[in-house]
């Protein structure tokens, strides 16, 4: 009986944890037929988007492991990646070498920004998420200052195709035509009409292995410890602050590299908006994959990308098919992204509180049991 109850409890917990993915499976299942999109188109799109987004989403895993929640500050890495790409494309370094160079150049920016972000987050303990969220806005201001005013005036930018006609500042879009999908197509492979970005997947695979390896290092172990109980970790001699900063730096660096991969697939940089929504979409995708604020795995990333982007592709079409207005679907998917994050945050906070109130119930039950026993004894006497 006991084992049965336990099983039921486990099943319940599983259902609760996977409620978001299940909801998305349902949304997708309903929307796909309505949208009228052909399966081959859909699969092609999903595969492309996986190659584009997975690396970025993977960058979120390490701060979650270190107990710092969803790193809304990954936008910082995205900005570092964009700055590196703008510079590289002004230097006219193209193709794969251009990408590699952009990745290398994004790293120092990412480290600097990540360090800043980590420092601030250490000062705002207990409200990391809202702080990292505001940091992303703040740094966005700095980014605009650099890109809109300093580039071309202080930082040399030669090409008129990148620079605004007024002589400084970067245009709204910077073309990456000579880098476009160079990584994806490095090893061309098409299976049943589906184009597979083999090399991108290989890079993603390597990152997954690195993350798995990282979890088994001393630093990874320390991060898990810090994530679960900072005080205990500190008493054990772990440098908590440093560990937290490192986790944010790693995340930012990965996000910077991920952004380069993302943009090579897109083929152009929307200078002032590419990064601004990227954090939100990545976090939403991760949560859709069944992750929570304090727990996320590589599996969540892949499941999340597939489900979230399926919804993303079919929603506008399905919305148009139902209401005759394509904007409805556009708004719907934005709404869903935000709603998913909201729901995940609410669930996380309520569960945190529920855990606290469990103790009292246990005590009441214990006493009831004791009293019952006492009464029985009395009765027997």
């Amino acid at each position, binding site marked *: 009986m006991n084992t049965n109850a336990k099983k039921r409890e486990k099943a319940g917990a599983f259902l609760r944890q996977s409620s978001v993915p299940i909801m998305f499976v349902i949304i997708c299942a309903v929307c796909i037929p309505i949208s009228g999109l052909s399966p081959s188109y859909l699969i092609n799109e999903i595969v492309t988007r996986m190659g584009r987004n997975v690396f970025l989403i993977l960058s979120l895993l390490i701060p979650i492991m270190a107990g710092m929640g969803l790193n809304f500050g990954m936008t910082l890495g995205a900005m570092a990646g964009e700055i590196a790409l703008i510079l590289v494309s002004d230097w006219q370094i193209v193709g794969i070498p251009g990408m590699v160079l952009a990745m290398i150049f994004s790293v120092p920016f990412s480290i600097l920004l990540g360090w800043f972000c980590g420092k601030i987050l250490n000062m705002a303990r207990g409200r990391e998420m809202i*702080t990292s969220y505001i940091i992303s806005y*703040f740094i966005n*201001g700095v980014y605009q200052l650099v890109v809109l005013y300093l580039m071309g005036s202080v930082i040399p930018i030669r090409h008129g195709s990148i620079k605004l006609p007024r002589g400084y500042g970067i245009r709204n879009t910077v073309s990456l035509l000579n880098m476009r999908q160079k990584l994806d197509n490095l090893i061309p492979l098409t299976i049943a009409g589906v184009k597979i970005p083999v090399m991108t997947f290989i890079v993603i695979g390597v990152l997954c292995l690195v993350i798995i390896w990282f979890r088994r290092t001393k630093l990874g172990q320390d991060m898990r410890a810090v994530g679960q109980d900072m005080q205990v970790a500190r008493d054990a001699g772990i440098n908590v602050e440093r560990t937290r900063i490192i986790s944010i730096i790693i995340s930012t660096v990965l996000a910077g590299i991920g952004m380069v991969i993302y943009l090579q697939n897109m083929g152009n940089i929307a200078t002032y908006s590419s990064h601004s929504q990227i954090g939100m979409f990545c976090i939403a995708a991760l949560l859709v994959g069944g992750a929570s604020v304090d727990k996320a795995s590589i599996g969540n990333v892949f499941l999340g990308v597939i489900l979230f982007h399926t919804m993303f592709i079919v929603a506008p079409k399905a919305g148009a098919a139902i209401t005759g*207005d394509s904007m*409805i679907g556009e708004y719907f998917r934005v*709404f869903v992204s935000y709603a998913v994050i909201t729901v995940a945050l609410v669930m*996380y*906070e*309520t569960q945190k*509180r529920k855990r606290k109130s469990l103790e009292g119930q246990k005590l009441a039950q214990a006493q009831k049991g004791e009293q019952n026993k006492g009464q029985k004894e009395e009765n027997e006497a």
Partner: protein
Amino acid sequence: MNTNEKSGFAKFIDSFGLPRLIITAFLLLLLVACPFVGADLPTQISNIISRFSWNGVLVLAMVPMVHSGCGLNFGLPLGIISGLLGATLSIEFGFTGPISFVMAILISTPFALVLGSGYGWLLNRIKGGEMMIATYVGFSSVSLMCMMWLVLPYKSPNMVWGLAGKGLRTTISLEGYYNQVLAKFLAIKIGNFTFPTGTILFFAALALAMWAFLHTKTGTAMTAVGSNPVFARAAGINVNRIRLLSVIMSTWLAAIGILVYQQGFGFVQLYMAPFYMALPAVSAILIGGASVNKATITNVIIGTILFQGIVTMTPTVMNNMIHMDMSEVIRIIVSNGMILYALTRKTEAAT
């Protein structure tokens, strides 16, 4: 050990806050520079005043939730949506002129109450994580309403897309409705200087009401809840009810706030417009000297003037001075920097 005897100046900086000091100095510098770069000072000042009058109520909406310890109301868009519903319905029902403003307030009130209660109920379940969740509640509701604006059966030709005949436009002109309805009331005009008496009076009335509320028994309880919820509970206060009340008040004020903003601005902005309305209001009250759990009416007034002052002055002065319009960037850095500063201040951990 630190010596307790700090110099008078250091003490002043401590109490005033360095960022606030820098911002004030910056604004003063802009004002001083104004005549030298060929901008007209009276016009500038009346600009600041009128922008203050548009935004004052939105900033005031921050006060109740800060007092009850719910933190900064990043969920302001929820209240704004109530206001938008009031505005659009008032026009839809065919009210015009000043009456449309009154009706907009009346119609938005029940929405604010209902949405505010739901929002407050949610915030009571997630104590400690209010600010992040408030942000996303705001975002979700705005994007939900984006769909609603398209779908809801509005008919008024002044509001819907001309071609399709349905779905609200992104901006709706208030000409003939309540455009400038408060601002023109008893407005004083001296040369280039205009004083929107009506709007200022309206704001003053609400601010006074808020001040008075904080002096009543319930208002006192609200402050105590924010100051130390455990103390309040031990003193028999129903903490959740007070918090709920504060959230409803904040939501309602946000609804009124957006209507006041619209009457000054002259347009109703729908769809994604309410999205980032919370951040300027949040940073304004922080610039005014509030912290995550303390705020006064004075903070609201000073903060709004400083924030709007910088927002209005930088474009003109900067443009005239170095021919670079960096105002947008400065606004982003200043406002978000201020929020960051407030978030990283050590406050008594309230659980």
